[in-house]
């Protein structure tokens, strides 16, 4: 090739001109693609779930996208824990163009590493379909957006209406800690488990910590603690564990042998009165039967400190990112935009899988009763947090807090030494670059 050019004695200046023109052409093409992402070509989508319901939902989305644009989409699914554990490697290798991920710290981390595509222009187009809080959760530390929200779910106290009616409890009227303890005592008296709990996966109990800390010490302390501005050895954190310990007699004893779905089974099989978890498992109830789903209800965790009331809730947002190392960035963006646009949201809703979408356009009149109740629980809160492992450093949450909570379950009397150890492990973390 080079020889050929030399042989024809191409004028160097001409060559440069050509290159400049070509460059402009390329730049123009990308600008065009940026303006009107009518991206073509095959692309791939990475789902971080292999469960029945969400798979059906996401495949509905992808099929609708293909039907609209004619772009073929390869659907690749990975089990969620495996997907999370391999994400760094995945994003550095040959990732799917558009993939399912979480908002907040977990997205920011990868955006900071330059592994995600800036979606600000997508937000310019579909941003008005979302409330400001979703935009904040989708924004990286550099102020650009890297995430398109799909859905949210609140963490709350779930129970079965029929079961509570039978026992004669009215969970809606559980307003404070004393009411809650009395209800748990009543359940225990009936030979039932008060609060179904799990922590085999190492993350399930983080939700309980979040809510106890937020209720007792307030949103600001919780956020500051997770950001390292407050100390784990603080008496206020000890207070959290003191209250947690009061719950232990009402929990199943095999907390460390159950993962979240094991604890969910306790509620499903009516062995437990309450289950504190994210409402996503409503889809699992629906897989069982419509009757089980209709029986499911949620109330906010009771007030524990009048100063803070019930003003905070963990309501993690799931959604989509576009991988920079993907083969088709423009295509990935186009799919992410479609997923965030009401059109894509509708495609997911049309699959019949219950979803509380982040999109304002989802008409709440289409919500079923359980979804409306989720919305009510969500709306009661003034502050929204994501979840412990989405609100703090990943090298702290998984490898350090997870095992610490597990060892607390083994020996609740060791609270002080566990908290001291947590603080010293936090202090030993390298500064974030």
């Amino acid at each position, binding site marked *: 090739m080079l020889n050929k050019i030399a042989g024809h004695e191409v004028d160097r200046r001409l060559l440069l001109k050509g290159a400049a023109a070509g460059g402009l052409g390329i730049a123009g093409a990308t600008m065009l693609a940026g303006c009107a992402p009518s991206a073509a070509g095959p692309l791939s989508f990475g789902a971080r779930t292999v469960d029945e319901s969400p798979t059906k939902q996401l495949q509905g989305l992808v099929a609708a996208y293909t039907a609209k644009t004619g772009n073929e989409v390869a659907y690749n699914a990975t089990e969620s824990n495996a997907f999370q554990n391999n994400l*760094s490697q995945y994003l*550095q290798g040959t990732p799917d163009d558009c993939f399912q991920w979480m908002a907040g710290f977990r997205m920011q981390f990868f955006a900071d590493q330059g592994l995600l595509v800036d979606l600000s222009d997508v937000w310019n187009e579909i941003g008005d379909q979302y409330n400001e809080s979703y935009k904040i959760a989708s924004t990286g530390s550099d102020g650009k957006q890297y995430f398109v929200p799909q859905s949210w779910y609140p963490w709350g106290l779930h129970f079965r209406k029929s079961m509570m009616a039978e026992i004669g409890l009215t969970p809606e009227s559980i307003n404070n800690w004393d009411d809650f303890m009395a209800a748990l005592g009543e359940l225990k008296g009936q030979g039932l488990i008060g609060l179904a709990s799990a922590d085999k996966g190492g993350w399930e109990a983080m939700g309980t910590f979040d809510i106890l800390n937020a209720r007792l010490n307030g949103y600001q302390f919780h956020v500051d603690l997770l950001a390292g501005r407050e100390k784990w050895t603080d008496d206020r954190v000890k207070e959290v564990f003191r209250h947690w310990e009061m719950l232990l007699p009402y929990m199943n004893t095999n907390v460390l042998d159950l993962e979240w779905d*094991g604890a969910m089974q306790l509620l499903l099989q009516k062995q437990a009165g309450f289950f504190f978890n994210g409402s996503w498992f409503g889809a699992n109830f629906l897989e069982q039967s419509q009757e089980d789903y209709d029986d499911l209800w949620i109330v906010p965790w009771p007030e524990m400190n009048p100063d803070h009331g019930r003003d905070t809730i963990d309501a993690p947002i799931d959604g989509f990112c576009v991988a920079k190392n993907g083969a088709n960035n423009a295509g990935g963006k186009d799919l992410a935009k479609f997923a965030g646009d009401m059109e894509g949201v509708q495609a997911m809703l049309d699959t019949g899988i219950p979803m509380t979408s982040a999109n304002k356009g989802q008409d709440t009149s289409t919500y079923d009763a359980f979804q409306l109740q989720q919305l009510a629980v969500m709306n009661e809160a003034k502050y929204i947090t994501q979840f412990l492992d989405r609100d703090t450093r990943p090298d702290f*949450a998984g*490898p350090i807090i997870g095992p610490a909570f597990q060892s607390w379950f083994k020996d609740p009397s060791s609270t002080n030494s566990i908290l001291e150890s947590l603080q010293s492990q936090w202090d030993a973390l390298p500064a974030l670059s």
Partner: protein
Amino acid sequence: MSQLKTAVTGTQKTRRRRFFSARDKVTLGFFIGVPTFLHIALVWFPAIATIMLSFTYWTGIRLEDIQWAGLANYENIFFNSPIFWDALRVNTIWLLWFFVIATPLGVLLAYQIDRQIRGHQFYQSAYYLPVVLSLAVTGIIWNFLLRPDGFVNGLLGLPIAEAISFFGDDRYNIWVIMIMASWRHIGYIMLLYLAGLKAVDASLREAASIDGATEWQTFLKVILGAMRPVNIIILVITIIESLRAFDMVYIIYGSSGGLPILGVLVYNNIAGEGASMKGAAYAVILFLLSIVPIIAYLNQQFKEDNN
């Protein structure tokens, strides 16, 4: 090319003790060079890189983010991570269990089968069967059996809430895991030892019995001595198997700290978003733990041999 050939034949004439033609050399070079290159690229390079990275802070993503950390990762592990000591405890119990119970049991079985006790073929295949399964598969099978909604709890008619916490309760989860691991390890040792026993000269045994030695004396003083090379292999395997344990525990507990072992700690600190070079430091510690006792033992053995 032809010049090279004459040169080669020239040297062949002058030097009689010449074995390799140029073609042989190329072939040999190729056959040694390629595996050596692969070995260095796939074993030594990652190993040395891991050792070096264990002295740094790094999220494993951008090379320019690597920061020198000195001994901080190790300091952190030894002084700040209670889970390290928990894991070390579990690995030590694992090692002792294999050493005192599983391995001797395998040796005993091998000896019995070698003595051709009645039904020895049945025992041999029954004990060997688990060895053909990978540890991951072993984990999956036992998990089906023992988890709260598993087969055993179902058989006992226990609902999930009252299920025996085989994997969750610290009082016995480690022993459950030990039994699972032994299930496979015993058969493995048995097979290795059996192969060794078959090679022992029958006349040794005969001579011992003529001298009036009991069965036990024969085994202890004659057979065991004749089996020295196999014993070394078995010892090394026992140490390595118990320290490198990972797959079975990972299948059951995932990367959470349900039953902490060093292998899982390496993974937990180096995989995923929580990646830090603490994982590399764990890997180096694990490597030293495995290699030091083995080298020490072999050293001593060779010294004895020389005497």
